């Protein structure tokens, strides 16, 4: 009967062993768990988790009424899919023992050996399972960020396949490159405190490619496409900002001074960018908007993500002030100019903001803030900016090419776009058989038809 345990908890591990991987690295008698750090990382993981429902609202408020459920659906399905994929396969691909600097080995398949003891390679004072869960939340939100680009038109079945492939073939390797012990970008010395490259560039660029491959929404030329519920968007932004404290401060992987620094720079950059986006609008068309302010805040959070634990508060102010006008320009001008239909600006904010952030990290990084990092351009080390640029290019190219291939492959199996009729009626009703709101006093509305 004991063998059942082995079957159940060891089956996939066995596959790993057969695959010739080393036995699990973690053993009893390893480093001790610290309760304070563990409390901090578990709560941070919960905070990062909440970002995806937050994003669902942020995005969901921006689409038209007839598509809001499709956004919420995609976010929740990602939460389910990536959670299961990560436990079975993703975690070991990303953080398992390095294979050739590009991918993790299959040793920890099915969380085999990832338990209550710490894994000193990543975080020596918290249970390995806590680290794995914290990292999972990053994988979820990254996949979810992309959907903003193809909102209001993607076929649900294609979306499911795309997500599963993308998280496995793009996210997991990239996370390994940047954060995995032995990953080549990590060895190169690229700085990415909490995922500017891994999370924001990868998803933003994937979004751009998806927007290009799928083409424009039908109604885009014909009628104004306006957010149907801005209070949802603002609430979503509030949850994102809140969760981002877990994202960035939690990336210190301990409740220490570095976490406090990351918390401080995160909040400061968000605040500064909210203000500078509003200012850009005020100057540009005379009225600061709340959609602008929350977009700015998100852009500020994006830009500081790679830098949060490497820069000081005044650098955070500058980074925030700088990034918002760039993103504003990208969404208001560049998008119209180049003519891609990135519905909710996944690329314009995460791709552009993430790129700006990765580069500025190479400018503002300061070993006086974090001796474990490197100095940036401003502190006498122009080389770091180069390294950052290399990492940016690698992430762009990798995400763009793989996303393109995945979409083409998925497109062979099932249409990438919903049918024209379905798009017209709205994805909520056509893909999911549901309607978001019942306003009427009599029962049983449908939607635009």
């Amino acid at each position, binding site marked *: 009967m004991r063998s059942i345990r082995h079957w159940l908890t060891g089956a996939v591990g066995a596959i790993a062993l057969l695959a010739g991987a080393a036995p699990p690295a973690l053993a009893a008698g390893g480093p001790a768990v610290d309760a304070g750090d563990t409390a901090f990382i578990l709560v941070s993981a919960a905070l990062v988790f909440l970002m995806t429902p937050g994003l669902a609202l942020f995005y969901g408020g921006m689409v038209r009424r007839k598509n809001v459920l499709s956004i919420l659906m995609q976010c929740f399905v990602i939460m389910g899919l990536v959670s299961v994929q990560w436990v079975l396969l993703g975690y070991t691909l990303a953080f398992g023992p390095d294979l050739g600097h590009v991918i993790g080995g299959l040793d920890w398949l099915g969380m085999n050996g990832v338990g209550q003891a710490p894994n000193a390679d990543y975080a020596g004072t918290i249970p390995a399972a806590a680290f794995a869960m914290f990292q999972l939340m990053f994988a979820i939100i990254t996949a979810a960020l992309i959907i903003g680009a193809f909102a209001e038109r993607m076929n649900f079945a294609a979306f499911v396949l795309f997500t599963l492939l993308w998280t496995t073939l793009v996210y997991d390797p990239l996370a390994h490159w940047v954060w995995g012990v032995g990953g080549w970008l990590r060895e190169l010395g690229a700085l990415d405190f909490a995922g500017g490259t891994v999370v924001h560039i990868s998803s933003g660029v994937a979004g751009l490619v998806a927007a290009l491959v799928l083409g424009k929404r039908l109604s885009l030329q014909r009628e*104004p496409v*306006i*957010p149907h519920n801005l209070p949802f968007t603002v609430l979503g932004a509030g949850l994102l900002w809140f969760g981002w404290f877990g994202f960035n401060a939690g990336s210190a992987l301990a409740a220490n001074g570095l976490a406090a620094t990351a918390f401080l720079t995160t909040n400061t950059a968000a605040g500064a960018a909210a203000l500078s986006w509003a200012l850009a*609008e005020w100057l*540009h*068309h005379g*009225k600061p*908007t709340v*959609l*602008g302010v929350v*977009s700015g805040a998100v852009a500020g959070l994006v830009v500081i993500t790679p830098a949060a634990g490497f820069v000081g508060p005044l650098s955070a102010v500058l980074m925030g002030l700088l990034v918002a006008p760039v993103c*504003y320009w990208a*969404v*208001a*001008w560049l998008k*119209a100019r180049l003519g891609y239909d990135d519905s909710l*600006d996944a690329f314009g904010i995460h791709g552009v903001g993430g790129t700006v952030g990765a580069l500025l990290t190479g400018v503002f990084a300061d070993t006086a803030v974090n001796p474990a990092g490197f100095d940036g351009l401003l502190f006498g080390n122009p080389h770091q900016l180069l390294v950052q640029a290399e990492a940016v290019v690698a992430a762009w190219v990798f995400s763009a090419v793989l996303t393109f291939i995945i979409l083409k492959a998925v497109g062979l199996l099932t249409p990438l776009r919903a049918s024209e009729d379905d798009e017209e009626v709205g994805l909520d009703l056509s893909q999911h058989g549901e309607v978001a709101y019942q306003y009427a006093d009599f029962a049983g509305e449908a939607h635009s038809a």
Partner: protein
Amino acid sequence: MKKIEAIVRPSKVEELKEALAKLEVRGMTIFDVMGRGLQRGEKQYYRGKEHTVDLFPKVKVELVCRDHWVERIIEVILKVCATGEIGDGKIFVYPLEEIVRIRTGERGEAAL
């Protein structure tokens, strides 16, 4: 009997209700509509994309009344709802052939 349809500014509805109540005109049916006419819109902005509105929220007030009440009601509407600025709305008067009170089945003037 006639049906009067007044398309007015939402901010005038309360006042209009009160003014009509003074005339002892209580019965009416109202609902939100969007109107388009000479009125020029404020601009909206969403992430830098400008969007000029040419539909304005109005309220439609429908009143069925006896023929000789029509002018009196129009007068009240004009008094209360005219601000002098474009967008004040319109009054339309229609003929009507029958009225029934659902509760009792009464017809015609008795149903009002």
